[in-house]
Structure formats: C-alpha cells, structure tokens
C-alpha cells in the first residue's frame, strides 16, 4: 500500500513537472467551459420561451441540460484521456526506467495500482473543474437537488476511470507513447461509435426459412448476445441515465468491473514479462 502510494505520488507529480498535467487540465477546463456555457445559455433560452424550441412546457433540467453536458464531459475525457494514460508504462519502457521500476522491491500490483492511481488523480483534477460548473448550476438553477449534481460528477468520474483503465492497458503493451495514445483513442472511439450505431439494431434478425430450427435458434441466440454486448458495453450508455440522477447499482458495477477487467489485463501483461522465458 505504501509502495503503491509512492509510485502514484511520483507519477502524479511528474504530470505537473512536465507540461502534460497543465495542458490536460487547461484544455479540459477550456472545452468543458465552452460546452457548459453554450448548453447553459441554450437551456436558459428554452426555459424562457419553450414553444419556440419545440417544448410543450418548461424543459426538464436533468434531461436537457445536465445529462447531455455530463456525457459530453465524459466524451471529452475520451479525447484528452490518451494524453494522461499513454505515458504511464510505455514511457517507462521507452526510457529504460522500467528496468529500475521492475528491479526495485515493488510488486506488480503496486506498480499497476500506483500508475492507475496517478491517472485517477488527473481525473480528479478534471472533476474539480466539473464540480465548479455544478456549483454554478446549483447557485443559478432553482429546485435542483445537490445530490443529483453530485451523482453527475461521480458519473463522469466513473466513465473517465473506465476510459483510463483501458488506456493503461494499451500503454502496458506498447513501447512508444504516440502508438499508445493513438491506439487508446482509436479503441475508445470505435467502441463509442459502435455504441451509437447499435441503438439502431433491430430486436431480432430475419433468417432464411430453409434453415433448420436449431440453426435458427443458435443464430438468434448469437445475435441477441451480440446485440446486448453492442448496446450495453459502450461506456457512454450507462452514463446517460446516471447523469440524470437515476443511480442504478448495476451501472456503477458496470464501470467498476470494466476498470477492474483492464487493470487485471495490465497486471497480466506485466507478469508475462516473466513468462517470456
């Protein structure tokens, strides 16, 4: 635990010795700020003359402002997250410092958790920005439950944490930071796009009539699994409801398990270094 903390601290501090930390925090604050201002102004206009914007009554705050904005923040992390994760292990390998890291008395899990902890630290910095925005909402928008706003921040955090765990894994299998960053972004983006496309998937597929019954059953079973994966796996899907303050244990569990899965794989990658004998 103490070692995990030491690794985490060193990694987190080095974000801010190099410009990476400032760039990530600054760009996140800038873009999320623009997004926040734009959606806040849009929401204000819509509440003043709902009919002009196609609403029948005062538009629902959570549904029209809060949730889309928070999911937007999560997706923003998708774009700048690779900057946070790409260096974590790839850079150690590239600079040779992995030889120190791996010959110091550290367990593999201490390395993985320490590195992930540092990335989560960067995420917390970004969440501080979102928290300020939520404070603005709480101050200006009447009848908003602070708990809903709090859940909102937690949602973005969970979504970001899931992204970062995947990024850490990619960083562990690459040696070059650019490769790591690009591959991470590609992976995230593809899963995001597939998620959007999967919303249009039909409930069942039409199969040729001359297929035998068991083939039909197997095919439709396969399709239903594919469909549930395609609709449930993408990271933003589970955030949409959560961001409106609808907190479901399975959504939280989804993010926790998602992160745990990639951390587990990263740990395995570190261990295979020793299998490759």
């Amino acid at each position: 635990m103490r070692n995990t903390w030491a690794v985490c601290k060193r990694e987190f501090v080095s974000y801010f010795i190099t410009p990476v930390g400032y760039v990530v925090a600054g760009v996140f604050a800038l873009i999320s700020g623009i997004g926040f201002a734009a959606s806040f102004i849009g929401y204000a206009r819509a509440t003043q003359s709902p009919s002009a914007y196609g609403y029948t009554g005062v538009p629902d705050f959570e549904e029209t402002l809060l949730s889309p904005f928070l999911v937007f923040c999560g997706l923003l992390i998708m774009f700048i997250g690779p900057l946070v994760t790409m260096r974590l292990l790839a850079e150690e390998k590239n600079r040779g410092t992995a030889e120190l890291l791996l010959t110091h008395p550290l367990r593999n899990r201490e390395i993985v958790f320490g590195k992930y902890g540092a990335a989560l630290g960067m995420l917390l910095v970004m969440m501080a920005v979102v928290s300020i925005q939520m404070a603005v909402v709480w101050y200006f928008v009447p009848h908003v439950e602070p708990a809903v706003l709090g859940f909102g921040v937690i949602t973005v955090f969970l979504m970001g944490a899931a992204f970062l765990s995947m990024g850490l894994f990619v960083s562990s299998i690459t040696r070059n930071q650019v490769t790591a960053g690009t591959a991470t972004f590609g992976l995230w983006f593809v899963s995001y796009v597939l998620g959007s496309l999967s919303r249009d998937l039909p409930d069942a597929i039409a199969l040729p009539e001359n297929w035998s019954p068991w083939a039909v059953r197997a095919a439709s079973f396969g399709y239903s699994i594919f469909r549930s994966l395609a609709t449930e796996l993408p990271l933003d899907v589970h955030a949409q409801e959560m961001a409106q303050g609808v907190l479901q244990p399975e959504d939280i569990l989804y993010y926790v398990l998602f992160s745990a899965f990639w951390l587990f794989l990263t740990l395995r990658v570190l261990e295979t270094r020793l299998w490759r004998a």
Partner: protein
Amino acid sequence: MIVLTGVTKYYGQIAAVEGVSFSVEAGEVIGFLGPNGAGKTTTLRILTGFTTASRGTAKIAGFDVNDHPIEVKRRVGYLPESVPLYREMIVRKFLGYVAEIKGLQGKKRVHEVGRVMERCGLSHMAGRTIGNLSKGYRQRVGLAQALIGNPPVLILDEPTVGLDPRQIVEIRDMIKNLAQEHTVLLSTHILPEVAMVCERVVIINRGHIVAEDSMANLAGVSGDKRVFDADILGDETAIRITLADVHGVRDVAVEAKGRYRITTDPDERMGVLLTTALVRANHGVENLRERTRTLEDVFIEAIGADEGDAA
C-alpha cells in the same frame, strides 16, 4: 551470496546465455568480463529479476529470484547499463522516491538520502534536475539509487562506460570503497578496471563461461613454467649455448635482435641461475624480468580458445 546454476536464456531461437553457473561469496568483489554481446547484461538482468531464465536457477542470499522476487530485490542495489533515470525529477526527490520504495520512512529516509548523496559526491547537486546533469553525475545518481538502503549486494553493469578519464577514476575509487562493505558483481569489458578493483574474475563469451579464477591465479605464473624476457649483449650462438647449459631451461627464443624469451622450469632460483650463468660467460645482461600474464592475455586466450573450439 550469489549462486547461479545452469542459467540459460533464449531470445526466440537464440541462446543469449547458456548453462551459466558461478557463485559469489559474501564480501567478494567479482569482475564479470566479456566482450560486447557476450551475455553479461542478460545474466545480470536475470539476477535482478528484470527477466527470467529459460532454465536454471539464480539465488541471492538464499532466495530464488523467481520464487521470492521481493526478498531478492530488497537485498540488491542495481545500476543498469544505460543508467535509466526519471530525467524530469530533481536529484533529492528521485532518491527520496527510491528510499520510500525501499521502505524507509520519515527521518530515516531523509538521513539515508543525505548519506548516499554524500557518499557519491552529489550533495551540491541535490536540487538539480537529473536531465540537466552531466553523464558523470547521472552515473553517480544511478549509483546512489543502488546504494539506498545499504543493500548487501551491489550489481553494477558497466558503471564507467562513457565517462571521461577523471570521472572513471572517481567512480572506480567509489566502487573500491564500496567493496569493503558490500558483495559486488561488476560487469565490464574494460580490463584494467577489473585488475584494479576485483579479487576474482568470471569471463563469459558467447553466452557461456570460459574462465573463472582469482586475479592472482589468472595474472600470475600458471604454475608449470616460468617465462623470462631478457636483453642480452653478445653473440647469439654463444648465448644460446650458455643458456642451454643452465639447469632447468626448457626453451630459448629470440624475440628481436638481442632480446630473448626464456622458458624454464617453475624453479624459484631461476632468475639468479640465469643471471649468474650469463655474467660468468661474459655476456652483458641489461634487463631480466619475468613475464606475468596481464588480464588482457588471459582474456584473449580464454576467448580465443573458446572460438577455436567452435570453429
């Protein structure tokens, strides 16, 4: 303290080291010699747990490097060949981080960092960014991080490569001092370094060990003969006749005009016998000295024999 038994490491089809076995007693300073690409770094990496052996076992202080990696790593200070460091960190912070990982807390940590910086002559560089230091100082930082926590075993992979002559002398002196309280495994291909620092030598070539002995045995007489070089004035035939009469002389060869190489029995009095005989026969002896093998001779012989075997 360090025991390797039949260590073999394959990279794909190629064996980087094959059947390497040797051991180092506590308190010994061992020179680990070999030409570039002989498998030195691979062997050290297996010992430090950076990679594993395909076959064979490596133990440090009785702990197997595979089964008890943490116990082994606690007892080893390792200076990798390329001296990888976090270049963006300042010296004191970096050493503090290493001390933290090695389990030192609070005041102890500050004290230990101070101690190793003092020891490696880094105290006046404590606040400098590592990336801005010269190669020599970076090497010292690398050595300092290996020394933190005072591990009983030090494994140093080519610690003087790329330094200027003065820095080389400084680092060597530092290693010599360290040798008094640590078991040191020093890998290098610079032979005088070993001659100066080490008590025993292990020579590795193309992945296997070709020689292993104490410095004295390797560099000294091999036991079954003595070889002298002498500058002698006078007629060559007469000198040959004189020398051939001396009891114990086996062979006389002429190296250059007036310069002879005399091979004799391993008799202690050979020097006196040769001089007396030559002086009695009225040959002027300008210079008579015994030829001791330098480490270079040993090295080239061992490696030559190895490559000869393979050919």
